[in-house]
């Protein structure tokens, strides 16, 4: 395994690459910062590489691990990057967004917003600039209905600009930044309970796309990517923490039931990949949930 960290770091600095990706945080490294960083890297280059710690984590240490939605839950982009390495998905064919249905339910809108974010990643994989722009517009329109702050609306312009320039890498970061900004805005307006629904929506759509592809192109390597019991457990736990009023809504009831049903499907022993039958079951559950989120849930 070769990462070539030092070479990359030096090249990064010598090129004066002050990070386009700082757009995600709004921070830009100044030329003064660049000189300062040169000092740091100069020292770093002389340090020998260190090796990973050898000791094993204790049960207590594992139990104390923090789970944070913004970092612990992977983006659809990470999922798709792994799929690209193990198969050759035809993203253009896969990209088939459905315009969000009109609904007065804020829960459903939050879930739809998550679906759209994942659709944005699919459009990026398909390198479909117009598709990304359309999804970006849908995200912003839905965000407006959820009364998110003005700062989120500016993200729509950034998405459009990056799509115009075919800057796919920046688009991946911008999509996640947009999603995070929507969530932050939800927290600010005391809509905390909607935040997890955005995350769940994005995860469901990503998993639906992946499982549908793997169902048709099964290999153990691809099926191994669907082994995500920790994520399902976490999402189930978060759904159970929603207020009773929300949990009793048909869509949330269906969501919880389906997540609970797929937990044993994605939980395999000894890191084994999902079986072809398990992939079919997962794909069916995810497609059914996407349908319910898009058009509304049937009463259970």
């Amino acid at each position, binding site marked *: 395994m070769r*990462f070539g*960290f030092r070479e990359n770091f*030096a090249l990064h600095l010598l090129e004066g690459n002050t990070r386009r990706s700082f757009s995600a945080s709004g921070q830009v490294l100044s030329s003064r*910062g660049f000189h300062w960083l040169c000092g740091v890297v100069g020292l770093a280059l002389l340090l020998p590489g260190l090796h990973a*710690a050898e000791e094993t984590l204790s*049960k207590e240490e*594992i139990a104390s691990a923090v789970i944070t939605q913004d970092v612990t839950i992977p983006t659809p982009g990470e999922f798709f990057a792994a799929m690209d390495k193990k198969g050759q998905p035809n993203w253009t064919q896969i990209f088939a967004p459905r315009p969000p249905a009109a609904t007065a339910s804020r829960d459903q809108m939050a879930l739809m917003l998550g679906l759209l974010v994942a659709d944005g990643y699919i459009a990026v994989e398909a390198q479909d600039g117009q598709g990304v722009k359309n999804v970006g517009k849908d995200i912003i329109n839905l965000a407006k209905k959820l009364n998110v702050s003005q700062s989120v609306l500016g993200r729509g312009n950034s998405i459009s600009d990056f799509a115009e320039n075919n800057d796919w890498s920046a688009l991946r970061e911008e999509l996640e930044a947009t999603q*995070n900004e929507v969530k932050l805005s939800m927290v600010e307006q005391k809509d905390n309970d909607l935040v997890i629904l955005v995350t769940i929506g994005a995860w469901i759509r990503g998993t639906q796309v992946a499982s549908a592809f793997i169902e048709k192109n099964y290999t153990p390597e691809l099926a191994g990517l669907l082994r995500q019991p*920790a994520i399902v457990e976490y999402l189930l736990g978060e759904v159970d923490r929603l207020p009773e009023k929300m949990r009793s809504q048909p869509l949330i009831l269906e969501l919880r039931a389906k997540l609970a049903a797929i937990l044993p499907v994605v939980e395999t022993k000894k890191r084994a990949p999902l079986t072809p039958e398990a992939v079919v079951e997962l794909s069916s559950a995810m497609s059914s949930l996407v349908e319910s989120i898009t058009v509304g849930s049937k009463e259970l």
Partner: protein
Amino acid sequence: MKTALALLFTVGILSAQEVAPPAETVTTRSRALELAGAFANDGYKIRDGFWSGTLEPGKPQFLQVNLFAGNEYWFSVASLVPTAKLSVGVFDESGLPVQGEVFQDGATAAAGVIADASGKYFIRLEVAEGDKAEFCLVYSYK
């Protein structure tokens, strides 16, 4: 290559002595992003999400992440406390260390791994030497 590195080192030392960035414009997150930005040349995408907090000497903290088999990851952490030497380690779901590459330079550190199986992993952060420090961790993947 050696000449270029030596020159970079010399220029770097002089620059570090003469020009320090104004403290108010630097945050732990921007410092962590600076470090993670080094991997962008190699095609790594940086996650917008981050994990921040305060690390105390002798009290490591752990973060659960979910990685995908075959993806390559760098976990970059930074602090603004120059006397805090940070370290990062990656462990699989059983708590066994994952071998990879580790970078450490005072108040910044990074660990790079390739996930060999999809699922749960743990990141361990600690102050290896020095003082209590606020930190921020970001990660990048390809």
